[in-house]
């Protein structure tokens, strides 16, 4: 009987193995993407299909992991044999990837034409010590989204320009009983909370690190930023579930009409505002740049851009580069500009493409220019983890904001 089972198992294995090997092309490359924010999984699959149609000799397998797994997967796959050829990377990782030789230095592959046609802010995404480790792909920052219908109902004429106005408008909306918790944020213990925190920190004139790379967020603007977050929860205007949310949860709550304000990436504009799909507030979505602080900063934004790079273990760097160029090309980005805006300056001034998206593009012009960076350090992950924990303990009231941030500074390994 065990023989029958073994035989069945074996033949199943063989049959499946053959089925898997049926489709083959000259070169196969593997690419790693994330399934969170910006381009949807379907967008990436379609772009890849377009590329393969144009390049029948190259087959691209795409793989999707949650953002939280993106960095770990990239690093772990550096062990021989596992390799991806192309990986998506966040603006905060080039330092670590370059130090650990995860990505190939592609400075020489970038032409002067490319250099000048792509927005300067985008180039910072792939840069470490004046070397480029890939091509910028997603040029993104967080915006303040609002539900125009709710604001109108509350008698609010214009969306907030400062963080304090945001709180007071939210309070008005809450008091009028329009929605229980007017603001929703992505404050889970994840990188998402650092992005929101960065915008607040920048607005209050704080900084993450001193010039010589020591922690600086535990005083001044860094503490005020966290104070603000705690206050918004205490006043009951922030959805208390925010502390277990990442971007997708924010989008879902906002799109289902359960929040008046939300901080999120570009992709939420069209996914919440375009009828069809899961949104219940189509046509009622407003977008403005992140608020600032009177007398300190007019508008805030965080650099949340991402790039595509070639891994050092790739055996097909040329094919990988070809794929990256196609994915980041103006042609591709124009076609899929619904959820992520192009890196090419020319696109923003083309009146045809900008229609339907005017409010977003208006906000983008301010936001993209104001992008504040998260710190550049090979030990970014430890620093970020420490700050995430500090923010959570402050939000959960297990520590005072300044004390929590002091602990984080001590635990950051810097």
């Amino acid at each position, binding site marked *: 009987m065990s023989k029958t089972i073994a035989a069945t198992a074996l033949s199943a294995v063989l049959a499946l193995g053959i089925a898997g090997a049926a489709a083959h092309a000259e070169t196969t490359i593997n690419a790693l993407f994330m399934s969170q924010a910006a381009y949807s999984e379907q967008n990436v699959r379609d772009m890849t299909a377009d590329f393969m149609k144009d390049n029948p000799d190259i087959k691209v397998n795409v793989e999707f992991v949650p953002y939280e797994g993106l960095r770990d997967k990239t690093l772990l796959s550096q062990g021989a044999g596992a390799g991806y050829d192309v990986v998506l990377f966040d603006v905060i990782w080039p330092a670590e990837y370059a130090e*650990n030789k995860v990505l190939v230095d592609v400075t020489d592959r970038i032409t002067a034409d490319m250099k000048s046609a792509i927005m300067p802010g985008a180039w910072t995404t792939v840069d470490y010590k004046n070397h480029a480790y890939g091509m910028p792909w997603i040029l993104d920052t967080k915006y303040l989204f609002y539900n125009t219908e709710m604001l109108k109902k509350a008698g609010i004429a214009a969306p907030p320009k400062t963080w304090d106005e945001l709180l007071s408008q939210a309070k008005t909306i809450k008091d009028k009983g329009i929605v229980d918790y007017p603001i929703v944020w992505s404050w889970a213990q994840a990188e998402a909370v650092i992005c929101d925190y960065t915008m607040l920190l920048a607005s209050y004139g704080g900084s993450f690190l001193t010039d010589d790379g020591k922690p600086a967020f535990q005083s001044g603007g860094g503490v005020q930023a966290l104070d603000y977050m705690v206050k918004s929860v205490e006043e009951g205007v922030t959805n208390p*579930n925010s502390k*277990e949310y990442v971007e997708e*949860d924010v989008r*879902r709550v906002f799109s289902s009409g359960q929040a008046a304000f939300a901080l999120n990436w570009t992709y939420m504009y069209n996914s919440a505002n375009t009828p069809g799909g899961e949104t219940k507030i189509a046509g009622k979505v407003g977008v403005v740049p992140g608020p600032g602080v009177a007398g300190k900063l007019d508008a805030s934004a965080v650099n949340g851009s991402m790039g595509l790079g070639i891994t050092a273990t790739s055996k097909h760097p040329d094919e990988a580069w070809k794929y990256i160029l196609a994915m980041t090309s103006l042609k591709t980005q124009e076609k899929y500009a619904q959820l992520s805006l192009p890196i090419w300056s020319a696109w923003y001034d083309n009146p045809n493409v900008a229609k339907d998206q005017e409010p977003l593009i208006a906000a983008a012009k301010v936001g993209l220019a104001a992008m504040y960076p998260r710190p550049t350090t090979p030990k970014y992950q430890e620093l970020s983890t420490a700050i995430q924990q500090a923010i959570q303990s402050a939000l*959960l009231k*297990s520590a005072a904001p300044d004390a929590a941030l002091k602990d984080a500074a001590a*635990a950051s390994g810097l």
Partner: protein
Amino acid sequence: MIENRWMSSRAWFLPLPLLFIMASIIGWPFLRTVWVSFTDARLLTAGAEWVGLSNYLNALGNPLVQSALIVTTKFVVYSVSIEFFAGVLAGLLLDQEFRGRTVLRALMILPWALPTVVNATMWRLIYQPDFGALNAMLSQLGMIDSYRSWLGDPQSALWAVCLADAWKNFPLVALICLAALQSVPGELKAAATIDGAGFWKKFRAVYLPFLAGPLTVAVVLRAIEAFKVFDIIWVMTRGGPANSTKSLSIAVYQEAFSFQRAGSGASIALIVALISAVFTTIYVTAMRRQAEVR
């Protein structure tokens, strides 16, 4: 003793494949882990310096490791005790005569057979704060007046994870309990019923002697399993909120893989192994004692 001579000459090599496998994929990695734990080895950069005990000292002094130890201990105690009580109650129930008993017994297999990751995902959806079934049910029944964030609140997150874990694992305890109850001679049960002995008295006098051994084994096995917990927490909370569900295994993952400090991660892993060894010793002793009773 022909078979002894026969076995020695012709069957001596039979255990070798298993020994070879265990030596190469358990023994060797374990010894390597011990070695790595005394070095500052990193995951991706080659080369490692001997650093003596400093990884261990750092680990023991690290508040994150301490909190992970507390979290893990709580996880073991909470989930194993829920599994124990729910399991024994269900086992006693399944030992009764009633219609549909066979069906219910078979149903107990369902949670047990569900993959851990699927179970974790299922409960994560149920606990979801805005659209999850638990909030919807409790509020429609009028038991809560506003939606709760079950996995977002450190007060409830660990309990929520423990309950999800217990749901999957209590059937095993129940079936072990049932199996033990079925070995109680029928006359003994009948005698106790006719005596009109109260439930508790009957339980202690008639059932407990039969249950004690198997249940000890079950509890210790579950405790060892629970102490290694990784998947259910990884899927449900990833250790959050504010580290309130970060177990030792998750801490090791973070240290060795996310932060790439292989040496330091190995030292935490070995601390986990050491504690687990204590449980195992208890288990083996219990098993021996049970064998002697038989």
